[in-house]
């Protein structure tokens, strides 16, 4: 029997603000599970999903768990492809500097930290999405 592992391209599409619904947190949990199975995983943040990566989230006042720091662990799970929709940022008056930085360590280059975030247009995103085997929307 061959033990070849089948690797598929998984894209997680995040479209909701972090605390108003449970979607953002649940998506993050599922992403980490998939990553553990050595799949080709990418994350996309569009529409209100871009708010998930906002810096300086302070949730003490609403009594909910602040899971924003978990995104910085994605690199350790070999998740190196984070796509952020440019138009979604613009219509919210936001720029990349409002979002946290996400990196991964390249073991082939003495663990140098590399940027995981790619700012993309809708048309670029459309192309990338079209190449996926599985797209899961949250």
């Amino acid at each position, binding site marked *: 029997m061959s033990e070849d592992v089948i690797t598929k391209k998984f894209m997680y599409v995040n479209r909701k603000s972090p605390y108003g619904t449970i979607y953002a947190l649940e998506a993050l949990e599922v992403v980490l599970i998939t990553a553990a199975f050595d799949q080709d995983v990418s994350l996309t943040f569009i529409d209100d999903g871009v708010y998930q990566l906002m810096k300086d989230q302070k949730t003490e006042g609403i009594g909910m768990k602040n899971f924003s720091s978990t995104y910085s662990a994605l690199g350790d799970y070999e998740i190196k492809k984070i796509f952020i929709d440019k138009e979604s940022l613009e219509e*919210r008056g936001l720029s990349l500097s409002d979002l946290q930085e996400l990196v991964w360590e390249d073991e082939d280059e003495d663990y140098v930290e590399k940027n995981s975030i790619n700012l993309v247009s809708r048309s670029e995103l459309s192309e990338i999405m079209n190449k996926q085997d599985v797209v899961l929307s949250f």
Partner: protein
Amino acid sequence: MNMLHTVNKSPFENYTVSSCISMCAKDSSILFIEDGVISVMKSTKFSEIIESALKNFKVYALKPDLDARGLSLNNVIEGVEIVGYEEFVDLTTEHDSVQSWL
């Protein structure tokens, strides 16, 4: 009669904010909570709607919900009053009734 309207949805998600404002009567107030607080941020696609609502109504936003989402108070539209849970309670008692838009 004066009514307190609360809105808990992002303006990007559906038409709640526009519907609410269009049905607000004189002397009404609007309080943005949960994802609704996104509505009161400067430089968004919906900032103008709030800016014009401010001419006719009092507009409030709940600070704990802004803080949770990393939305800086410096970027809140001028004229919007930032309130905490205690003022939220005061607002509900000061108005004759509360309409919670869902």
